[in-house]
C-alpha cells in the first residue's frame, strides 16, 4: 500500500511543475476579457490534454492545464460510509471558505472531492515551488486527517454509548429487607 504512495506523489508533483508554467493571456473570443482558459474552454489550442494519475480505482488526481490556468481535482480514498461523510463535510468546510484559500475552487468537479484552480495571478504573486509544496502536503495529510477524525469519532461514539447504556444494565443492588 505504502509502496504506491511515493511514485504517485512524484508523478503528481512533476506534472504540476510542468503544468504550472502559466502566463497572462487575453481571451481570443471576447475582447478585453481575461478569464482562466481551463474554465472557459473556448479555444482548443490553448488547452492541454487532461491527465489523470490514479493510485488505485478510488484515489486519483485529474490535472487539466491551459496557457493561463491549471485545474487540479483530487478524489480522496473513502473506504466506508463514515469516511465518506467525514470527507464530504471536511471538503465542504474548506470550499465554503475558498476565498481565503485563493487557489481553491468553490465546487469540485464531477466525480472528485476537491478542486484547485491556479491561475497566472497566483503564480505571479506566490512562489510556484511553494504552491506545489502546499498541494503535495495537502494530499499527504488529508488521508491522515480523515483517519484521525474517524478514530476520534469512533472513540467518542464508544464513550457515549457506554455511558448511555449504563442506565439500562441490571443494577447490582441487594434487597436489604429480604434478609
Amino acid at each position: 500500500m505504502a509502496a504506491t504512495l511515493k511514485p504517485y506523489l512524484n508523478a503528481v508533483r512533476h506534472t504540476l511543475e510542468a503544468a504550472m508554467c502559466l502566463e497572462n493571456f487575453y481571451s481570443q473570443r471576447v475582447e478585453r476579457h481575461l478569464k482562466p482558459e481551463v474554465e472557459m474552454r473556448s479555444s482548443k489550442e490553448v488547452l492541454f490534454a487532461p491527465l489523470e494519475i490514479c493510485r488505485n480505482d478510488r484515489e486519483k488526481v485529474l490535472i487539466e492545464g491551459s496557457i493561463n490556468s491549471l485545474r487540479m481535482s483530487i478524489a480522496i480514498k473513502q473506504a466506508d460510509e463514515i469516511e465518506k461523510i467525514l470527507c464530504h463535510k471536511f471538503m465542504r468546510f474548506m470550499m465554503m471558505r475558498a476565498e481565503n484559500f485563493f487557489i481553491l475552487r468553490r465546487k469540485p468537479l464531477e466525480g472528485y472531492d476537491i478542486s484547485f484552480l491556479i491561475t497566472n495571478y497566483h503564480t505571479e504573486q506566490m512562489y510556484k515551488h511553494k504552491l506545489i509544496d502546499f498541494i503535495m502536503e495537502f494530499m499527504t495529510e488529508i488521508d491522515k486527517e480523515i483517519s484521525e477524525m474517524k478514530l476520534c469519532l469512533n472513540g467518542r461514539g464508544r464513550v457515549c454509548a457506554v455511558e448511555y447504556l449504563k442506565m439500562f444494565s441490571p443494577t447490582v443492588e441487594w434487597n436489604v429487607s429480604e434478609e
Partner: protein
Amino acid sequence: MTTKTEQQLFVGPITSHAFNGALDKLVVSDNSTSVYVYAKQSNGKWTKETELQKHIERVKCVDWAPNTNRISTCAGDRNAYVWNLNAETGVWEPSLVLLRIERAATYIRWSPAEDRFAVGSGARLLSVCFYDNEHDWWVSKHIKKPIRSTILCVDWHPSNHILAIGSCDFKCRIFSAALKETNDKPEISGWMPKLSKFSALLAEYETQGWVHSVKFSPSGDRLAWAAHDASINIVHMDSKDSVIRSLTPSLPLLSIIWASEGSVVCAGHDNYPSLYNINGDTLSAGTRLDVKEKKAGGGMSAMARFQQLDRTGADTKDSTLGTTHQNAIVELRVTATGGDGTCTQFSSVGMDGKMVLWNLDALASSIADLKI
C-alpha cells in the same frame, strides 16, 4: 567585472522592457496600464524618470526604436501607441496608431529601419504599421492567413521586409512584409527566393507547443524559436527543410536571443538563462549561466531550527530559490555587442519584478567550458 547586476524594479511582475540606443534609459511595463521610463544613474542603479499613461488595459509589450528615439507600447485594450519625445518639454507624447484589431494586442516590435513596426494580436492577425504623413497617424496592413491563433511573438529580419511570427497554433511562420506604400524594393534572398508581395507566406514550421519566442540571427541567415514543448528549434535559410531541434530538459523557454551567429541564450520558466551552441547539425547541451554563489557561513543553530519548526512547521527558513530570478524570466534583450558582433551583455526581466544585466564575457571566464 561582475558577472551580473540585478535590481528589483517592482514588487509584481515585469511584462516587458526595452533600452534606448545609448543604453542609459529603459522603458519597462509592470503588470498594469502604465509604462515607466527609467534612467540610469551614475552608480549604475536605475531610477524612475517618467510615467507614460494612456492605455486602459494591461500593457503587454514595449519596444524602443534606438535611432529615431521612439517608444511603442501595446496593450490588451486593442490599442498601440507610438511615443515621441518632445525635445523642448521633455515629455513623451503619444500618437495614434490605427491597428484595426478586435482583440488584445500581444507583441510589438520596430523594424530594423524603424519606419514600421509589427503588432501581434489575439485577433489572430498581425498588423504592420507605417506612418501616414498626410494624416499624421500610423496606419496598418494586416497579415491574416493562415494564422489560426493568438500571435505570441514577432521578429524582423535585418532586411526590413521579412518577418517571423510565432503563435499559439504551434507554428512558426515567415512572411514577406514588403509594403508598396513605403516604396520597398525587396531583393531575392535565401528566405525569399522569388519576389513576394505583402503577407506572402515564405516558410512554415510546426512544433508541439505554443511558440513563445522567435529570433533571427544577427545576419538574418538563421531563425531560432522556442516552443512550449521545451524545445529550441533552429533553421538555416539555405536548408529550410532541416530544422535543428533540441528538446531541453528544462521547463518551457519563454525568450531566446542570439549571442553570436552560432549560439543562443534562452530563458524561461526555469528562472535561469542558459547558453546553447550550434555544432553542425546539433545543438549542444546548454550551460547554465546563473551560477549559484555558495553562501558563506553555516546553517541555523539548533535553537533557531526548533523555533522555526514550532512557528511554521518546517525547519528550514529559506523559501527563496537558488537562482537570481525568483520567478520565470519573461524577456531577454541584447544590450551590448562586442567588436565582432557577439553579445557581451544581455538583460533579463522576470515575473519576480527583477531586472538583471548579465555580462557574458565575465561569465565566460568564470564558467568553465563556456563558448560563445
